């Protein structure tokens, strides 16, 4: 069972890369595959880039995996990522730890708006989380054009954050944090009673209810934890990589988390490998753009192909 699921994931990842390589050949870019590989894992520099890209993907992937496991359709990773970054920026004046804590809390609070609406008016979280993404994007846009704009007032971006993550060269401590988060999420889901109830609510809300599980509490908890993971991703990206807020800060990490989680089949530890794969794809695609002039949107194609293959291979029940 477990081996089969691993096989499906590996097959999906390979076929996505193979399809990209084939389409490269078809359009006269036979070098696509080799650049993709060398540009992502071919050198220390490339590998560093891949690791840095993998960190936010791992955390937003965890965010989606936890929510989906609980049967909560949190599509709001993007907004929660931004809320986390904003929180981290504001918290940074009290130090690095405070900044990280603020990013966790901000992400959780932003996601909790959706669970509150769900409990209060039964508003579907699929919709509310997406809508909250747009609000977060514009909120950030307002912040970097207004109250948080850099002192010089030149560009729509903030000043440097007053704290940052410890780093060796480019590699910041967020990498370790993300891996710890993955292990913690695994422990929560598979080694605690709350995790058991959370998964039960995700599989069969009604049966969980009859077994005495407070499914509404599970919804709130799953959404908050999920949001805090995406928020942490935003916080780490700010404190470790960009050090500033700017308008297009999220760059799709929230949505990419869905692909990461699906490839990992919603397993927290699988998310580590899955995030690395997508990190490599994104970094390699950047190299493609620089050296071969192929648009880096191939990374997005790759994501889409993986999602389609995973859905085709794992969904057998019809409605």
């Amino acid at each position: 069972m477990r081996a089969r699921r691993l096989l499906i994931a590996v097959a999906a990842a390979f076929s996505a890369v193979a399809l990209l390589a084939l389409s490269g050949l078809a359009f006269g870019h036979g070098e696509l595959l080799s650049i993709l590989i060398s540009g992502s894992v071919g050198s220390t520099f490339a590998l560093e880039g891949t690791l840095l890209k993998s960190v936010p993907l791992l955390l937003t992937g965890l965010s989606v995996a936890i929510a989906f496991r609980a049967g909560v359709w949190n599509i709001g990773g993007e907004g929660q990522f931004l809320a986390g970054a904003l929180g981290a920026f504001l918290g940074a004046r009290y130090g690095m730890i405070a900044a990280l804590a603020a990013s966790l809390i901000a992400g959780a609070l932003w996601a909790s708006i959706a669970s509150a609406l769900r409990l209060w008016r039964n508003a579907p979280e699929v919709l509310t989380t997406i809508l909250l993404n747009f609000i977060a994007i514009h909120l950030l846009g307002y912040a970097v054009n207004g109250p948080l704009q850099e002192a010089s007032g030149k560009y729509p971006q903030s000043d440097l954050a007053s704290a940052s993550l410890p780093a060796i060269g480019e590699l910041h401590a967020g990498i370790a944090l993300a891996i710890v988060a993955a292990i913690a999420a695994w422990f929560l889901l598979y080694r605690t009673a709350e995790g058991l109830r959370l998964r039960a609510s995700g599989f069969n809300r009604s049966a969980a209810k009859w077994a005495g599980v407070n499914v509404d509490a599970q919804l709130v908890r799953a959404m908050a934890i999920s949001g805090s993971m995406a928020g942490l991703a935003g916080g780490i990206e700010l404190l470790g990589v960009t050090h500033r807020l700017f308008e297009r800060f999220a760059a799709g990490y929230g949505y990419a988390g869905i692909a990461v989680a699906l490839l990992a089949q919603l397993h927290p530890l699988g998310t580590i490998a899955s995030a690395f794969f997508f990190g490599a794809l994104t970094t390699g695609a950047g190299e493609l753009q620089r050296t071969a002039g192929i648009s880096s949107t191939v990374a997005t194609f790759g994501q889409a192909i993986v999602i389609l293959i995973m859905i085709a291979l794992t969904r057998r029940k019809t409605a």
Partner: protein
Amino acid sequence: MRLSHITKRFGANVAVDDVSLDFAPGEIVGLVGENGAGKTTLMSIAAGELVADDGTIEDRVAVGVVHQHFLLVSEFTIAENLALSFRAADAPVGAEDGEESPAGSRPPAVSAGDSSPRFAPPGLRRLGMTSPATVRRNAEEIIRESGIELRDVNRRVADLSVGEKAKLELIKAIARHPRVLILDEPTSVLAPTEARELFDVMRRLAAAGTTVIFISHKIPEVLEVATRIVVMRRGRIVVDGGTMSATELAEAMVQRRSDVRRSDSPVRPLVNTPRHLNSGPGSAGRTGESDLRIAGLSIHPGEIVAIIGVAGNGQSELAVSLRESLRGRVAHIPEDRARDGLVAEMTIAENIALAERRWRPRAAAERAAALIERFNIRAQSPLQRAGSLSGGNQQKVILARELERHPEIIVAAEPTRGLDIEATRFVHDELRAAAARGAAILLITSDLDEAFALGGAIHVIYRGMLSPRLTPDEAAVRAPQLMAGVG
């Protein structure tokens, strides 16, 4: 039309068991029986929707069915729904020659030249087109012909009352001029005046020579409208006759099963420290017919109180309201095992641990293994997916989980539905043992034998209301009438 020696099995379960039945034109047949008695299965076979495993149908005629659940497109208007359902009948003659279906599976398309509905002028029809005005005009004509009153065909179905939707379904069926018309629980959603109107339509159709078959478990209605009454129980016809009294009919519907022994270890009600299961007046959800009003239901520790009634009288709502309102160590055995019982995707061990405070995979597996042993659950391992167990074994897992809570109160809804004799006995023994340990047990069941075998006291539920508390002896006399609403 004549059904002879019809048998239909679903797995090991015999839904219809060697039934023979024939219908004469102009009859109104009341087909009654408890849930699962085989009424709907038998009628689906008569209508050609199901194929019998054994037996034959002679003199097949066009059969129309009005199902219990509406088959309407709620975003469409009345006229559009009628047009939709007549597309097939409207097709040019010969278009359906290719697909030969078993006789009677669909009412044969009406013969050319009669007043069959036409939804488009011939030119447009050949192109598969129509016009809103034609759709409207034809719908109005169909409704007028049916003799059923339904105004303004431009209203969307979503805006209709349930009664009007039921009428629309009936119009659809009648417009095909069936020789046999089957109505499956048609009055369950109707107000009394609407039901009366439906009965008039039924009588008119019968007078015109149609056989009307009326499936119901509402005894007063059947007595009012049927000219012949057929009672089914456990897949067989047990009564087929003209006139009966309400009591006779109720008794015929729910007669005792012989395979359950009466308890010889009577439970002792403890008079001191009563523990009350109260849900305030009107506090629970709605039943199909009326608000659930359960007040002053009380059970003493060590006592089993049974609630009996014909399904759909508020039993499910009662169970849900008790789940929402009871606090403390309460065990719930849900009625809908497939949906509510277990998380099919999770293992037996995980399902059992759901009720516990702690989750340690290894300890949970050991515990589950011990329970599998003790409850004699046929499973390969505690790590087997719960969904892969048979129904009876799933029920045992639920029982194991719920009884391991050491509950003070147990609410068991239909705990043995669909179980074989051995599993049934096992469940009964476990419930008795739990009562002997001091649990207060509420047994909600539609199986009278079960109620009498276990219950120290019995209430009858009818239209969301409980009868006074009855002793088993009182219940043996009064239950049939109370269940039929004539007590």
